């Protein structure tokens, strides 16, 4: 028996078909973008409504699929997040007109919107469907075409969600190819497409390595880094309300959002109160031995234990060897002194919230700043009524969002606050990113500004923006490149659905987590 037979490996080298197909997807997207950039505002809103409606219809279905495929999170919570990226997201941006030219007679300027073209978006495994919904909506509202590359661990559900939205968009008049998703993502594929001169902008949400690669690609990128949110509970806070916020936030989707609190910091004088309040809100406060068990379980020699990502508190407690009530929502290890070296102060995408206390506000600020460096530019929460301290805290913290008296998971991502709803949380200069806001459709459009001399005698007040829009509409946007009626042939590779082995999956997640640590240190 030859070596080939023994291994059943192909006798010939074969090209990377997935890469080839991804490149053609980018080509299709460029066609779609060419026509879509001239769509009128009513046409854009019609397509946005269509994908919002389609997304909502299957929000629960895809939530279930996502948890089944990735093993992360809670179905009901994922359904909430998915839904939040449909009508709620659209409503938030409905009045932000990125289509109609703007005329400013006072400043003698006219501004014409120019969409980026082809957006290449990288989505994480943690919030696969919500991210697909959210990024597709951003692209549609900004008149861009989008090609998404899902995390390999969430590719089936991501592809299904993207195809579902694409069908709805096309039915509403969008050009074919406006919303696409790579079926078989891989690191070489993502690197190749990111560096391609056929794409116009990258939105990278994911591990540090991926985000850095996006910035190194030579293409414009909107990359965001990991978080490690700290919640400071000031003695001026209503502890019971604060504790309820924290427990609600940490148990939401089993803490899979990067905006979830990692550390709860209060003052010594307040610690007893906080423990009691957390306990009555449904948290389990760990004694020293349980804290040690939890630390040992969560942080292995290879870094964070990926098995714990997005799992429930009870599940983790059982694995860590801690006896808890089955109804426990959050595990709270207690580190009495806020030193920097305790592993439990690192990001934990699971319902484990480390409680610590400082001797005074000054020490609290110092500790908070250092903690936020492992997740720089991201988010923090402040609980309390003392506005002077709130401002001092926000001024000192290297983060671009401080939410007040609300659950940080949801609040920093724009749910329940007036921050823009987002699954791409700009980590700004502090987090080595080009954008410090919650990324929205406005980030995918640049404007051509027509400027007259300040003292020019021009009167622009009679310039009708709608008339300008009509000029650009003359390109007669027609949906084109429609795929054949029958379902496209399923390539053999996809039909067989070669499951990613558990080992490979573990490697991928480990890689992401390792890079996350490297980024911190």
């Amino acid at each position: 028996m030859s070596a080939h037979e023994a291994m059943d490996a192909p006798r010939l080298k074969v090209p990377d078909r997935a890469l080839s197909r991804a490149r053609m997807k980018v080509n299709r997207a460029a066609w779609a973008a060419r026509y879509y950039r001239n769509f009128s505002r009513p046409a854009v809103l019609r397509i946005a409504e269509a994908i919002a409606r389609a997304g909502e219809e299957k929000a629960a279905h895809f939530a279930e699929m996502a948890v089944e495929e990735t093993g992360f999170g809670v179905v009901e919570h994922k359904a909430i997040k998915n839904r939040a990226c449909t009508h709620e997201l659209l409503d938030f941006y409905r009045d932000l007109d990125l289509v109609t030219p703007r005329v400013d007679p006072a400043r003698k300027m006219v501004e014409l919107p120019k969409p980026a073209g082809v957006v290449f978006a990288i989505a994480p495994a943690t919030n696969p469907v919500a991210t697909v919904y959210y990024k597709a909506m951003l692209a549609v509202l900004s008149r861009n075409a989008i090609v998404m590359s899902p995390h390999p661990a969430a590719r089936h559900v991501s592809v299904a969600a993207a195809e579902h939205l694409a069908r709805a968009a096309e039915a509403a008049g969008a050009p074919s190819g406006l919303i696409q998703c790579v079926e078989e993502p891989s690191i070489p594929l993502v690197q190749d497409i990111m560096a391609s001169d056929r794409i116009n902008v990258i939105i990278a949400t994911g591990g540090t390595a991926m985000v850095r690669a996006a910035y190194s690609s030579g293409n414009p990128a909107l990359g965001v880094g990991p978080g490690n949110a700290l919640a400071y509970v000031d003695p001026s806070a209503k502890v019971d309300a604060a504790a309820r916020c924290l427990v609600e936030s940490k148990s939401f989707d089993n803490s899979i959002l990067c905006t979830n609190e990692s550390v709860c910091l209060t003052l010594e004088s307040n610690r007893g109160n906080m423990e009691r309040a957390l306990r009555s809100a449904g948290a389990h406060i760990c004694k020293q031995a349980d804290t040690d068990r939890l630390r040992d379980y969560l942080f292995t020699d290879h870094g964070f234990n990926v098995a714990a990502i997005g799992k429930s508190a009870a599940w983790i407690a059982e694995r860590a060897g801690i006896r808890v009530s089955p109804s426990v929502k959050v595990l709270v290890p207690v580190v009495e002194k806020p030193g920097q070296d305790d592993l439990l102060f690192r990001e934990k995408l699971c319902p484990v919230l480390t409680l610590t206390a400082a001797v005074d506000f000054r020490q609290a600020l110092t500790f908070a700043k250092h903690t936020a460096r492992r997740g720089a530019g991201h988010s923090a929460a402040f609980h309390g009524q003392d506005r002077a301290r709130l401002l001092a805290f926000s001024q000192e913290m290297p983060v671009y969002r401080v939410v007040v008296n609300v659950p940080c998971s949801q609040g920093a991502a724009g749910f329940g606050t007036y921050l823009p709803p987002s699954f791409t949380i700009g980590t700004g200069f502090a987090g080595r990113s080009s954008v410090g806001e919650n990324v929205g459709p406005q980030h995918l459009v640049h404007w051509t500004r027509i400027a007259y001399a300040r003292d020019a005698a021009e009167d622009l007040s009679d310039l009708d923006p709608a008339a300008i829009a009509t000029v650009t509409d003359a390109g007669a946007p027609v949906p084109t490149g429609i795929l054949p009626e029958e379902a496209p042939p399923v390539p053999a590779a996809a039909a067989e659905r070669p499951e990613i082995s558990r080992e490979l999956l573990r490697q991928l997640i480990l890689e992401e987590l390792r890079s996350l640590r490297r980024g911190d240190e």
Partner: protein
Amino acid sequence: MFNYGYFSFASKADLLKKAAEFWNPGKVQFWTEAGTPMVIDRREGYFLYDMSGKRLIDLHLNGGTYNFGHRHPELVEVMKAGLDYFDMGNHWFPSVARAAFSEKLVKSAPHMKYAIFGAGGAEAVEIALKTARYATKRRKIVSIIKGYHGHSGLSVATGDERFSKIFLADRPDEFVHVPFNDADALEAVLKKGDVAAFIVETIPATYGFPMPKEGYLKTCQDLCHKYGARFIADEVQTGLMRTGVMWGWQGYGLTPDIFVCGKGLGGGLYPISACLTTAECGGWLIEDGAAHISTSGGAELGCLIGHHVMEMLERPEVISNVHFVAEFFAKGMAEMMARHSDIFVGVRQRGVVLGLEFDHPEGAVAVSRALYENGVWAIFSSLDKRVLQFKPGVVLDVDLCQEILDRFDAAMPRARQLLKGMRRAA
């Protein structure tokens, strides 16, 4: 100095001189006089580079040979992988690449039973005609006037006399020509009951892509069957997604008894062609499988590349791209015709097969030259020089399509000037 390692030329002029001396003086002279003296040096994607360094966008594609562009990286990868394992193979024996490729082809046309391979389109036509004669035990072959099916023994006899008479290869007793788009004329010949087959290009390329009239091809096919003849579709230029579907006949609701394909089947890298036949016509493959043999027909390297070409053409992204390109030029050429209606008088199009009509008996020769000067290479139709063959590739991207249109627009004043000169000379 053009040093290619294996041979070298001092200049383009030196090359032209040697080519005329040792290769083909007629062709060298023709292109020089036509004002398009191209000698292709580098080639990549849809770009050709003349020895002078001039870049040309290829809209000739050698009739679709470069459907995927020149040296498509994925096909080059397949070719190189093939060279690490295969060679041409031995045509006498069953082979893995031939079996896999014939299965792939037959599955793309489910009413077919066998695929028989050749090295070029003419060889596939040769096989098709012999197969039809075997099936009917009749000798006569009907084709259209100004049809074109290749230059070998039987195939050249089906075509225009320009290519047969010079070699005394015309055979008027066995090969009958009828006008295109005239089913009655075909029926008049078929009625005699001695016709083996009617062979027709689904859209006659060398004739300038005149479009078959509504129902014409189906009527021809039905008439063939009525009178016991076989219907052969020549898909050399219309196959492989070029009309928007894999095979041109699919778009006309036909089920040919035999069809042939070539050109782009080898990805522009390795010559291969195929003749597909129904079980009924292909009986000779059972009776005497070695009745037709070909050392280089169905070479395994060609089969490997052909197999992958088919796979690439079946990808939904590629199919969608073909439609985008087709629609872009449908709209773009309509605009161009409106802008240049004094000389540009008609567009014939199906998918990415286009024939552009100009208002002068040799109009397309002038336009070809004007386009050449503007960086686009598209060839006139040999048998109708009013018509420019305009053949975009299946994976062209939006930017290049726009550039092609912009260059076309820019070339029209020059074309107008050239045509004026031709009219004056006439």
